[in-house]
């Protein structure tokens, strides 16, 4: 039970105004009734304010408590960034604005679809009747035709600090602006690049924490060494096919810390991987639910390595094909499915047949026989995989660099689960 009910009542009274036609006792009684029903105190507060304020006073929400798919959202916040963008709406070109809004509780992205709203960076604004949506796990505020925005005095809000957001690698896809990460350097190398005709040294490599790994590019020599644990404050993230890339330069604060960081090799649930679209050197587990056509013994063009059909390359015409072995799998853990590409050596290990054996089977019984063999050995098996996962809105594909069939003791696991359930009931 909430023990500071009276401070909530104070809040409510101050929001609906002293002259509201309701007794404090009445408010408290209603408030407690909500709590008895398990309604969170903040929600109970909002409901009562709405009920008794008769629309006299608008309640502004903190950005940190805004949820997706809400309508009639009222905010008092600062415009952190704002950018114009040309889009086509039903064939008509239209100018919209997008950017970030901030208050003392956080920063969230917004899009303004309304032509009548003008915003300037740094403005403190009262926003009424906005609505919210969600994109990739992040709440976004939208301004529509019903939304009104009013510029108010700057001192209504404290200056929004642009503090870099503390983040884990797995959450980088939900971060905007600068981030603050504590990571272990897994490898690093020096590279020379050409920037506007000028030679510059950059330091590239991979880093990670207990939630995942990312590539990095440092535009300044921070003397990073493999195995160092560093806190990087003020880096930016970009993504390529779901693979996070952290970039930082001399404006960032990079400092070695003595803390130990364990880089995770724990399997990621597939729905999380697919939501992030991809990942660098990830581990996953799932069941093989399909071995696709195109798996097994295949022939490639000796010139361009393209798959050839009936001894013909699309580009090079009739060629003498070079044999190869691979598996194209669909692996699904019940929460999501991904494509998996397994190369020659790993396929040999997975099916327990060498490339030469497969080649012989293909020449004696036809290519279909090798595909049948793969299906016989792999379908319905649980596999543990590791590799880079690349994804877009059409799905995620993992390029296996490690693949094993997981041995399951079904009877033992079933018995343990059963005993656990009997114990609970």
């Amino acid at each position, binding site marked *: 039970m909430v023990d500071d009910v009276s401070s909530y009542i104070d809040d409510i009274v101050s929001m609906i105004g002293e002259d509201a036609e309701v007794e404090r006792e009445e408010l408290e009684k209603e408030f407690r009734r909500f709590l008895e029903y398990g309604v969170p105190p903040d929600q109970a507060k909002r409901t009562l304010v709405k009920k008794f304020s008769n629309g006299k006073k608008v309640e502004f929400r903190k950005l940190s408590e805004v949820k997706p798919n809400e309508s009639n959202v009222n905010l008092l916040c600062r415009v952190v960034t704002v950018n114009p963008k040309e889009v086509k709406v039903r064939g008509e070109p239209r100018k919209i604005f997008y950017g970030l809004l901030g208050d003392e509780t956080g920063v969230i992205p917004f899009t303004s679809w309304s032509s009548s709203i003008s915003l300037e960076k740094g403005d403190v604004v009262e926003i009424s009747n906005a609505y919210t949506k969600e994109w990739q796990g992040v709440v976004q505020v939208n301004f529509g035709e019903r939304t009104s925005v009013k510029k108010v005095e700057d001192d209504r809000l404290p200056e929004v600090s642009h503090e870099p957001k503390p983040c884990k690698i797995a959450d980088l896809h939900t971060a905007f602006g600068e981030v603050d990460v504590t990571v272990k350097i897994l490898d690093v190398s020096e590279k020379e690049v050409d920037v506007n005709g000028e030679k510059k040294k950059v330091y590239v490599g991979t880093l990670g924490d207990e939630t995942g790994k990312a590539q990095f590019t440092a535009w300044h020599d921070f003397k990073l060494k493999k195995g160092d644990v560093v806190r990087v404050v003020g880096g930016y993230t970009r993504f390529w096919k779901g693979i996070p890339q952290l970039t930082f330069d001399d404006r960032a604060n990079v400092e070695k810390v003595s803390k130990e960081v364990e880089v995770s090799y724990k399997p990621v649930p597939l729905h999380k991987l697919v939501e992030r679209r991809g990942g660098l050197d990830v581990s996953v587990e799932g069941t093989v639910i399909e071995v696709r056509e195109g798996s097994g013994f295949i022939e490639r063009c000796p010139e361009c390595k393209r798959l050839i059909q009936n001894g013909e390359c699309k580009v090079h015409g009739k060629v003498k094909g070079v044999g190869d072995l691979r598996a194209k799998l*669909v692996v699904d853990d019940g929460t999501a499915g991904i494509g998996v590409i397994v190369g020659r050596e790993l396929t040999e290990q997975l099916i327990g047949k060498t490339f030469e054996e497969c080649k012989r089977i293909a020449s004696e019984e036809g290519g279909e026989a090798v595909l049948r063999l793969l299906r016989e050995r792999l379908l319905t098996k649980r596999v543990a995989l590791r590799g880079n996962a690349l994804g877009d809105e059409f799905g995620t594909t993992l390029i296996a660099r490690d693949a094993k069939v997981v041995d399951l003791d079904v009877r033992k696991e079933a018995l343990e689960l059963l005993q656990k359930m009997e114990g609970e009931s």
Partner: protein
Amino acid sequence: MRRSTAWRVFAGEYNDASAVVKGDGERVPSYVITPLGAKINRLFIVGVLTDVESLAENNELVRAHVSDPTGVFALYSGQFQPDVTKSLLEIEVPAFVAVVGKARTFEPEEGMVYVSVRPESVYEVNPDARDRWTLETCKSTLDRIEAVKEGLKLSQPNAYDLTKMGYSRDLAEGVVKAINFYRNMDVEKYVALVKEALNYLVPEKGGEELPKVDVKTEEENKESDDVDDTVLAIIKEIESEEGALWDDIVEKCMEAGLDRETVEESINSLMDKGLVYEPVLGTIKTT
């Protein structure tokens, strides 16, 4: 459009489904929502193919049944899946099969929904594959039971809070739909279903000592169930179109010999069970 998840669901849960979300247009898929919130467009089944029957000339429509430890899936395959139809007809029954298929529904009349599966692939497998699938499906089902319980705890079930707890977006959305659609949902039925399936995997366990269910707890449960029955009966007796006033219910129940605390507890318990709800604060109505 990304590949849809191949759900692991027992026939006993799938066949109970009657909620359908229709996709509009070709690019938006349709879903069957099960009572435990599985939001199924595609599913993966391993079980025993028990019979295959041609329903139309030239095998234009074939019906087959695949059984798991909890029930039977109905499969319909037609002329648009000639390879799968052919595979089904060639397999000698009974046989263990692995099936990936799409959820299909048939609604002969308003409010009546039959679910089936349109197979996309069918392969013969061995008994180990069936056991692995059964175990995996037990685990998935338990996850969904957990998710539904979490959803019911929320004052306003919503997908956002559920995804923050770690459930997949699909499951979170499915659970919210299921809670709103299936009133009086009996989660315990599916706990029993999972136990049944697990027992199936460990038949030799028969003589083994398993922790006994606490008898007293059971009696207590029964007692509180009796109270719930009494309170529910009283609400039904005094409610109007708009429901019954909280205070009136308490008064009537106290006249019937219950103390205030027990009555309030019982009303809450009835709400948890979905037998009553509160259309307006302070007013209770039966569902």
